[in-house]
């Protein structure tokens, strides 16, 4: 990219050179805290994570190089890691798309409302701000098979409700419902995008005889697809990090003082939880770092997809 000066001068003169030097100094000054942060809180720990993943670090004694041993243990040795990988994959493949579709559906309903649209938007968005721990504790209580209102309501409808957070088959669907409840952020983003679709496009499509489905498929979707992609990729990255709700739900549903990560039956053990346990409960810091490297590679792959495609990150855009 070419460098521009803020004030265009016809020739490179001595004052201009001084000005350019001052410019550079100013940029450096404004960015200095960011550069420090970038180095100390990203580059340094990232390099250390990669290095530690090849060592037997245990957080206390001097780490020794052990080659690929941690990665071999990851592939063939850790009895719980495939549980964790499968659970995290489940969240990424089922929970995140469910969230995107649900948020899109709610946004489309809200966009069509003629009365009280902004009130409804407010109500739909509010749960997204609820602290994840508080929301999870509340959901475990609501879905409690004995005293919770959810199974009672299902019972009134003649449905025998499942054990939800206490059943290995239903714990992840229950977490998905919790995620849907908090999907207001996506909903607001979709709603803003839907309202920006030019009305003329719909009118033109209607004149051409397009039904509701065709209008959605050929007018709405192409216009909002960059926003949907943005929401999906950030959702996937959040899914890869999924930790708090799984941890708290298993702790509260289990009801035991001894933590039981993954309760019931390892069904809520996610990849970042396994990383946490390896690092902070078992002090296998080297192995935890190997897991961190895997997480890093996967998350970056999705970020690259986002940068390639989404317009929100139009980095070439210059100030107007």
């Amino acid at each position, binding site marked *: 990219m070419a460098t521009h000066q803020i004030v265009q001068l016809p020739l490179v003169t001595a004052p201009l050179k001084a000005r350019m030097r001052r410019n550079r100094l100013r940029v450096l000054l404004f960015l200095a805290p960011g550069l420090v942060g970038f180095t100390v809180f*990203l580059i340094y720990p990232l390099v250390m994570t990669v290095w530690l993943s090849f060592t037997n670090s245990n957080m206390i004694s001097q780490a020794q190089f052990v080659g690929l041993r941690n990665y071999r243990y990851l592939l063939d040795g850790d009895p719980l890691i495939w549980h964790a990988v499968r659970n995290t994959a489940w969240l990424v493949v089922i929970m995140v798309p469910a969230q995107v579709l649900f948020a899109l559906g709610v946004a489309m309903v809200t966009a069509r409302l003629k009365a009280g649209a902004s009130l409804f938007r407010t109500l739909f968005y509010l749960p997204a701000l609820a602290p994840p721990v508080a929301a999870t504790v509340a959901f475990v209580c609501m879905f409690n098979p004995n005293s919770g209102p959810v199974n009672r309501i299902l019972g009134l409808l003649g449905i025998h409700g499942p054990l939800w957070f206490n059943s290995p088959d239903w714990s992840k669907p229950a977490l998905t419902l919790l995620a849907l409840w908090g999907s207001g952020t996506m909903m607001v983003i979709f709603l803003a995008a839907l309202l920006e679709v030019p009305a003329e496009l719909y009118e033109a499509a209607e004149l051409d005889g397009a039904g509701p489905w065709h209008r959605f498929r050929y007018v709405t979707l192409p216009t909002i697809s960059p926003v949907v992609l943005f929401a999906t990729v950030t959702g996937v990255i959040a899914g890869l990090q999924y930790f708090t709700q799984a941890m708290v739900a298993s702790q509260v549903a289990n009801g035991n003082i001894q933590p039981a990560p993954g309760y019931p039956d390892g069904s809520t053990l996610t990849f970042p939880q396994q990383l946490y346990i390896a690092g902070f409960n078992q002090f296998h810091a080297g192995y935890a770092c190997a897991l961190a490297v895997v997480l890093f590679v996967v998350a970056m792959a999705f970020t690259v997809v986002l940068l390639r495609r989404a317009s929100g990150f139009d980095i070439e855009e210059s100030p107007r």
Partner: protein
Amino acid sequence: MTTTYAPAPARQTRAASPHRAARGRAGRRRTLIWIAEHAIAVGLACAFIGPIVFIFLTSVMTDGQSLTTSLWPHHWQWSNYRTVFSTAPVGTWLLNTVIYAVAATATTLLSSVPIAYALARFRFKGRNTAFLCVITMMMLPPQVLVIPMYLMWARLHLTGTIWPLVLPSLFGDAFSVFLLRQFLLTVPEDYLNAARIDGCGELRVLTRVVLPMMRPALVAVGLFAFFNAWNDYYGPLIYTGETPAHWTLALGLATFKTSHAVQWNLTMAATLIAMAPVIIVFFFAQKAFIEGVTLTGVKG
């Protein structure tokens, strides 16, 4: 409601024309669609707000009733909110959370504005690379860096305190920088040039011209920073998990049900205490929140 889409009175005189019948049908259909759409919206609103109402109702029940399936409190036991503070160190947790959230908000705002301004307004070599770095930091799962970070803070003897949670935001928070940059791109350059021609240096341009214009963005970023800290579980778990005196509300609440009270009513009271600031502030500042969210998703 049915009158909204009724045919115009002038048309009504031409009784029984097939044309009119068709219009009537279309009008009825539109009315039905209107009703259906608003019914769905009301149903969704109940689903979204229901859990919060449930938390509140359960939090004022008696111990015994909160273990049953009944939804409405027989006896409104407001004293639960007092009991909660004596059952568990909720007061300490609350104080720690407020300190963490206020400190993180102040440092985030202070450090992120100049970085965002430079990224949005200065032209320099490597600007795109710098912005790419911001996005990378924003997208990077915190778990990737947690082990070396913990070791670093341990070497500085700061684990067990909230310092490791606050100090990093002195050096810019990626999400805040991103959001502020998106906003700054929308400020017309002419305003800035006018100030520059009047002889203002860049720092003066930023503080005198840009900052007042940025108020909505600053409010949004401040609110997000505050509630990110307020809601944070992972950070406090890593750094203060072993020292209960420094626990935040999120950390305490996670263990509340198992270690302090088997009663759901007290657990829900503590839950509502954790949620209350979010709900209250949201109703005062919902516009700022929604504008902020919109800014992250749509091209700035």
